[in-house]
């Protein structure tokens, strides 16, 4: 029995070394190493140290896979054992506790291992060997322990950005970066990329997408690789992944579309800053097709702005409407208001603003373009004609905030500062992500407003703050319109949020002169920031508490949904985390939603 066994093992090994990619893809329990340049060996495991009785195959590993529910490796082990002994049949009692075989019963060590207690398993084995010096653990057990440790080492080295150690650890234990440990293979590729060994990174990704059989694995690999490879090499990778070594029953079309999705992401990003006409007609129509297919509201808004900037208001209105239908939001409504305004349809613009009026500063701001406040000291500055958009209004409608700053600078140079102008400057600075300057602008506006004589109308502030603009909101139940003083306070609060002054803001919020809506909005933002901090500090229950409280004030946006998912995950509420990530990913699949989803999935199914 021994001789033919060894022979078949040798043949297996020879095939593996000579056979190129075939060996990688083999669903054999042995090595499917993914480290380039590392010799591939299919571990023959011809019997083990504990030397099971002649004619009896060693089923310990099989029982281990069964216990941890790793179906794939269980099947592979069954195939391996069948290859060793064609007459062997898998036992029916895979989960039954096994009586001690010859001498030492290995099952306690396997139990520790399957519970993830690798160090404890090592300790127990060392103690056993001290007591029974003639006993040796089976090769399979040692192999699994080595593998678990190497996988852990690769993870911790990569988590702490010790890239060379990732590469070293993978080289020392090539099996730790096989298809069944895809996460580690990705970490290896990332390590090569970080070490500027781009060719090796590419080779590693290539090995994965051409040898790992599952379409989902190949697709996820394309997404992973997108961070480290050029678009050209990514295209090459997708083409390989969609065609190489197909496994029966797998549909690789999703692999090819992954690359297209990435392309769309890049295009949408370019749309955001694109000058008119920057995108080719082909690119544009491709983005439009994909956004429609996925009913991607964010993508539709990006397209809306793309056309709005070209003054193609009809096309812009179409996309904003679409976005608002898929997912109603003040962002979509804002675009819609300005697009209708561009078309000269002020009635429709006001109608589009109605659901958000007084609730969203975005909308209130957009409405100023539709119905410019009258009076000599209106936000338009030195505008002479009461109707028709000023240069500043037009810049705002284009979302051209750099122009906003320069127009205001020019107006102030010509006719001096006003509170309203400084306030507008604050908003534009905020949009340009210059929060400290924005805070200063709002503070200046506040000071100036206090000095400005009341000029009547909406701009009256200072001496009697709150009175001029208040139209007894509480009594009517209508949303309270913010006074200019309140808007200044609100602007300052937003700017302080952006600079990260959470403590100061939390302290000052109760005394700040804000409308109820503004106060709720700031509170919601503060809670979001606090939730982010709690996540960093690993106070996961606090994260959930804060997010729940925030949800009472405002619907939960996507990024906080992701935060919620990780909090659930870290509280080991894996099923809930999975559901959370899934619902986000179903709406729009991005790298972060995919990462959450696949991590939760792997944890639940031990698929590392």
């Amino acid at each position, binding site marked *: 029995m021994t001789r033919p066994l060894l022979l078949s093992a040798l043949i297996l090994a020879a095939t593996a070394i000579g056979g190129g990619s075939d060996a990688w893809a083999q669903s054999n329990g042995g090595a499917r190493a993914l480290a380039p340049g590392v010799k591939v060996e299919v571990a023959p495991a011809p019997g083990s140290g504990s030397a099971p009785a002649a004619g009896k195959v060693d089923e310990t590993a099989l029982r281990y896979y069964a216990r941890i529910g790793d179906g794939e490796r269980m099947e592979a082990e069954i195939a391996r054992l069948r290859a060793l002994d064609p007459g062997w049949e898998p036992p029916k009692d895979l989960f039954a506790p096994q009586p001690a075989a010859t001498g030492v019963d290995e099952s306690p060590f396997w139990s520790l291992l399957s519970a993830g207690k690798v160090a404890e398993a090592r300790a127990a*084995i060392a103690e056993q060997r001290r007591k029974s010096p003639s006993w040796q653990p089976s090769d399979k057990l040692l192999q699994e322990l080595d593998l678990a440790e190497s996988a852990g080492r690769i993870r911790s080295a990569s988590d702490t950005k010790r890239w060379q150690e990732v590469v*070293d650890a993978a080289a020392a234990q090539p099996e730790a970066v096989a298809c069944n440990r895809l996460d580690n293979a990705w970490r290896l590729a990332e390590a090569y990329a970080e070490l500027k060994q781009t060719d090796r990174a590419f080779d590693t990704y290539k090995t994965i997408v051409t040898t790992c059989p599952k379409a989902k694995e190949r697709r996820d690999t394309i997404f992973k690789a997108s961070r480290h490879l050029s678009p050209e090499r990514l295209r090459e990778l997708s083409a390989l992944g969609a065609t190489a070594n197909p496994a029966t029953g797998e549909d690789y079309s999703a692999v090819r579309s992954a690359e297209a999705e990435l392309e769309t992401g890049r295009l949408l990003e370019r749309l955001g800053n694109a000058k008119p006409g920057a995108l080719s007609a082909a690119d544009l129509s491709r983005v439009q097709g994909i956004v429609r297919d996925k009913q991607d509201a964010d993508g539709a808004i990006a397209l809306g702005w793309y056309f709005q900037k070209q003054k193609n208001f009809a096309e812009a209105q179409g996309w904003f409407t679409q976005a608002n239908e898929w997912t109603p939001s003040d962002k979509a409504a804002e675009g819609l208001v300005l697009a209708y305004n561009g078309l000269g349809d002020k009635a429709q613009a006001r109608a589009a603003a109605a659901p958000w009026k007084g609730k969203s500063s975005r909308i209130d701001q957009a409405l100023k373009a539709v119905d410019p406040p009258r009076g000599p000291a209106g936000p338009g500055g030195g505008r002479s004609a009461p109707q028709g958009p000023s240069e500043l209004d037009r810049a705002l409608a284009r979302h051209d905030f750099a122009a906003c700053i320069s127009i205001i600078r020019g107006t102030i140079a010509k006719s001096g500062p006003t509170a309203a102008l400084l306030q507008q400057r604050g908003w534009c600075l905020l949009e340009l992500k210059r929060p400290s300057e924005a805070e200063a602008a709002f503070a200046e506006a506040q000071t100036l407003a206090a000095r400005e004589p009341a000029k009547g109308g909406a701009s009256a502030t200072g001496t009697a703050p709150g009175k001029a603009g208040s139209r007894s909101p509480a009594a009517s139940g209508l949303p309270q319109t913010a006074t200019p003083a309140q808007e200044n306070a609100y602007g300052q609060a937003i700017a302080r949020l952006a600079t990260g002054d959470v403590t100061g803001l939390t302290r000052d919020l109760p005394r700040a002169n804000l409308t109820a809506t503004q106060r709720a909005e700031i509170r919601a933002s503060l809670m979001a920031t606090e939730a982010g901090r709690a996540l960093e500090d690993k106070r996961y229950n606090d994260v959930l508490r804060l997010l729940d409280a925030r949800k009472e004030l405002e619907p939960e946006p996507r990024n906080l949904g992701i935060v919620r998912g990780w909090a659930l995950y870290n509280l080991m509420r894996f099923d809930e985390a999975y559901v959370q990530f899934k619902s986000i990913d179903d709406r729009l699949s991005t790298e972060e939603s995919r990462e959450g989803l696949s991590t939760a999935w792997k944890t639940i199914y031990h698929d590392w």
Partner: protein
Amino acid sequence: MTSPVGTSRRGMLAGTAALGLAAALPAASRAAPYDGAAWRRYAERFLLPEGRIVDTGNKGISHSEGQGYGMLLAVAGGDRAAFDRLWGWTQRVLMVRGDGLVAWRWTPDGGVADRNNASDGDMLIAWALLRAAETWQAEAYRTAAAAIVKALAAGLLVEQAGLTVLLPGRDGFRKGETLVLNPSYWIFPAIRAFAALPGGERWGKLSDSGLVLLSKARFGGFQLPPDWMTLDAAGTVGIADGFKKQYGYDAVRVPLYLAMDGYRDPYYFRPFATLATKFGATKYGGSAVPATVSLPGGTTTQVAASVGMLAVYRLACKLAGAGDAVTVPPLAPDEDYYSTTLAHLSALAAQSLGIDP
């Protein structure tokens, strides 16, 4: 934080090259079995008449660790008179804390220079007393040992993250929720002897935890344990701040103590054997086994491992199945206290394992 023995040892071996010249001298490290003659050679060099072991590599100071090693080797050498002198000095001079533990550091100029204890020193002394009690059938030694063991258990054994661990000293090794530990303070054969005393169950747990920690605390390319490590409340191990982040003069004793307690699992000896074989194989090219390795980076020092350290590596290689990769030169006439002690202890360990030292 008061630093027990380990940290001050750094650099004191700088002058000791790996390849000694005194090839003609009898090599104590290779004398088997360990006997009275080996002990006498040791005592001639390091035991002063008043009963203290002098650390020749460290300005002639004495410490609880040295007393413990001396007492241990005196029992092995069958020299009860020397043992009594060592124990007498230890009691008289170092056991001044009032809690049954031993002040760890004494200098010729100032007497007791640090009243903090070093747990490995206490353990070595207690273990030597237990062996003396057995060898010479003297109950008084056992009673004294039990008192030290009891004081250690009360003040130094603590539970963290489900593990029973030993604080390196009474003061200064807790940083918030995190403990600073020294892997080489797990003197496994001593711990086993303590576990066999009445009420010694917690010591048994300390042994188990030691093996778990030695599996977890592996860093860098060689997967070596650090001289000083941390253990946080979640059971995560790290390399301690405030000490040199390295494997070196302290942690080299890890494989020695494992071997002395009869452990043979190659897994626990492999990191040390890998280090020794990597550098030992090219020794004729001018390279030698380094005395320290930075962690996790893996930078090695120019200072070569001492003869005593090489004796430990030789042992580790045998147990890791790496063969005779390390050649141990004879001890030099002026070999320092620490190197000589390691060499003698390695000989004792090899003897108890029944392998060629």
